[in-house]
């Protein structure tokens, strides 16, 4: 186990949590701004999210009577990611740089892949519940891979900075 500075790990964790909450807030802000009549700001957010989601109205959750910035599957993955981040400090050392075994990530992606592929191929009709549950599972597990990766990235950067300072 590669153990690094606790302060650095806390910085990474806090930044990741803040970004995730901001991301979720933007997803909710798009419909809220529309309902409040701020169409231009809302359009910019919807357009930005269109880069990562099909935004099909019939497959989206609604907030304040308008569809959210992303579809139900994407919204569930992001919500799951925040849940995973909340659970992370209780299940793993924040300073851990190494990933959990890869089969956990693959295993968590399988239900989402089956739900998505089955729907596309017409084998069965996926529902809001199936998209939400599979998405939350995948998002929560993904948090356990993203966090140690970013902790490792910060440590690499710090190590390079130290070497650079020592040499100069």
């Amino acid at each position, binding site marked *: 186990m*590669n153990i690094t500075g606790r302060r650095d790990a806390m910085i990474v964790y806090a930044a990741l949590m803040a970004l995730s909450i901001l991301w979720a807030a933007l997803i909710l802000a798009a419909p809220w701004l*529309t309902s409040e*009549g701020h*169409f231009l700001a809302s*359009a*910019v957010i919807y*357009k*930005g999210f*269109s*880069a*990562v*989601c*099909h*935004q099909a*109205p*019939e497959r989206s959750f609604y907030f304040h*009577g*308008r*569809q959210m910035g992303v579809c139900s599957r*994407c919204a569930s*993955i992001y919500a799951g990611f925040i849940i995973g981040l909340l659970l992370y400090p209780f299940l793993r050392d924040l300073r851990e*740089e*190494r*990933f959990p075994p*890869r089969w956990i*990530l*693959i295993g968590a992606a399988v239900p989402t892949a089956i739900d*998505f592929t089955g729907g596309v191929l017409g084998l069965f009709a996926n529902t809001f519940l199936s998209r939400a549950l599979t998405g939350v599972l995948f998002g929560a597990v*993904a948090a356990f*891979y*993203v966090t*140690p*990766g*970013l*902790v*490792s*990235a*910060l*440590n*690499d*950067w710090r190590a*390079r900075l130290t*070497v650079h300072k*020592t*040499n100069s």
Partner: protein
Amino acid sequence: MNELDWKQPALVGGVMAGILSVIPIVNFANCCFCAWLLVGGAVAAKMLINRAPRPVRSGEGAQVGAVAGLIAAGIYSLISLAFAVFNIGQRFQEELLNRMAEMSNDPNFQAAIRKMIEEGANQPMAQKLISVLITLIIVSVIYIGFSTLGGLLGVALFEKRRDQPPPPQYPPGYPPGQPPNYPPNYPPQYPPPSGGSGGSGGSGGDQGGWPQG
């Protein structure tokens, strides 16, 4: 990551993700959790792993993914600006907005969407470019973020040498290949062997380099 050859993996991953993100129809895969960016980052990480003589760390995967995302965002931005200047893709955007309006039962919302489409059609070029630029900044941040995720997940999936112990870290200037806790005068300098080394040449011949007694 300095000692790793990361430029080519980042370039290949970035160009791949950028081009696939602008080709019509093919780019619909990005609607599924920015798939091409995740793939681009993962490809960059996989290439980095294949070229690295040691296990690639997750942070290095994130970094090569981020650079690939930056390249992809650059390609996407250039082509999107060209599309905006020549009014390509306007009709698709109008169709999307119309669908949103049809799904809503609120007449005020429908009226607002119609107004937005009309304003978009009559928008001066300067205003259109500014709105495109704002969108491009948002999209670029998203691209870099998702490609970084792709790089991270790529290392998680493809790096199979993680269980090996990492190589020792040497202080700056220390000769590579030597353990860090050797005394400063190591290795000791032995006098040349008298009477030759048995004709095998080199230092110590088949004795593995140890001095002859």
